[in-house]
């Protein structure tokens, strides 16, 4: 058994590049997904039905779609419409668009429970449109929904493992090639599981740091 883990260690270059891809992919998808989700949440909250209804249809549809099927559609389905991506861009695109719907719903849910007074005050001070959203609406929203957004980031990390199916060389893909090369499935996949666990613990530590910040501001 220890010999198997030693073999995994001897392939640490491959393992690290897989881990690097998983981290980079999740980070980019989380940031882009949050930005897109914030934009979508303003559409969801819009009093104009022509903006709110399409946004709601998209968010609900994404929340009812399995991520693997969505990734398949982006990578294998869209080329027949003339949109061709390499595995990396397709994976990043699929992760970002899919999770922006979840981010939007999280922000919307937090938004409806926000007190109305600061927004009125912001309006009275002459803020409007995007300035109002960025300076008055978003900061308390981001702080109060931080734990749920953290869970969503963990979900992004876990969904990125699906992208091994579209040949993206992330962590699960790396350990799968290590196990097939050396026939050490247990050691290889357990290593991956422990690395995913470590990533999620880092995210949780980050969330509780934001939580302390939010308490300090209160």
């Amino acid at each position, binding site marked *: 058994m220890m010999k198997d883990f030693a073999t995994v260690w001897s392939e640490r270059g491959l393992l690290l590049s897989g881990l690097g891809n998983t981290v980079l992919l999740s980070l980019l998808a989380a940031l882009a997904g949050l930005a897109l989700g914030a934009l979508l949440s303003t559409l969801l909250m819009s009093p104009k039905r022509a903006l709110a209804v399409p946004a709601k249809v998209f968010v*609900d*549809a994404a*929340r*009812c*779609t*399995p*991520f*693997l*099927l969505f990734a*398949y*559609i982006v990578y*294998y*389905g*869209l080329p*027949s*419409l003339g949109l061709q991506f390499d595995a990396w861009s397709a994976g990043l695109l699929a992760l970002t668009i899919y999770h922006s719907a979840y981010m939007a719903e999280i922000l919307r849910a937090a938004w409806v429970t926000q007190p109305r007074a600061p927004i009125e005050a912001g309006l009275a001070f002459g803020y409007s449109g995007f300035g109002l959203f960025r300076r008055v609406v978003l900061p308390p929203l981001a702080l109060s929904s931080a734990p749920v957004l953290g869970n969503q980031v*963990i979900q992004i*990390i*876990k*969904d*990125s*493992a*699906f992208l*091994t*199916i579209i040949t993206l060389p992330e*962590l*699960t893909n790396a*350990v*799968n090639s290590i*196990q097939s090369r050396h*026939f050490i*499935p*247990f050691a290889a*996949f*357990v290593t*991956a*599981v422990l690395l*995913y*666990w470590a*990533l*999620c*613990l880092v995210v949780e530590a980050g969330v509780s740091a934001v939580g302390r910040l939010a308490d300090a501001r209160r």
Partner: protein
Amino acid sequence: MSLADVLTIFHGALTTLLLSVAGIALGLPLGLGLALLRWGKVPLLNPAVAGYVSLLRATPLVTLVLLLFFALPSAGISLGPVTAGLLALTLNTAAFNCEVWRAALLDLPKDQIEAAQSVGMGRALRFRRIVLPQIARTALPGLINEMSLLIKLTPVLAVVGVVDITRAAVRIGAQTYEPLPPFLVALAIYVPIVFALVSVQRWVERRMARREAAA
């Protein structure tokens, strides 16, 4: 894409549904059992369950399925793709259900139990008559949410070769060189199923909110 192809995808839908139902049916009581071990602060098992839940919540299902599918046979336990997939789904959903049940248990007022004790109810009767009916009600929205998450995770079975909706669609796409139509048929099956569950969850939440407002 022919009618026969559409029927193949619907046949896959049957597999998806059967495995989802089996995963839910196994995961619900298992999650409750794990939650009770934590609630009762059973020595050794309490931290073990906490570790299990933390680990499983962080493990991607694809990685778990591949681990079970490849590693168990090399440990002398032979299992097919369906068993490996169902085992992975159950282990995963039990961890999430455990947290939902545990939250409901922590939410249960202590005086309920003390009142049951004072009228002389034994441990098993107390659980069956007092604890379970109340936590089942509080846990219901969370449990339904977990069911829709489970259905959205079932395409992972396609990775190890179970012919579910997703695998059937991939196969037809590969045969006809037109992957988009079968994927859209697959989407048209998944979305209503998950949407129905999400709607039930919202309805239950609204009902509970109304009941709380009335009380």
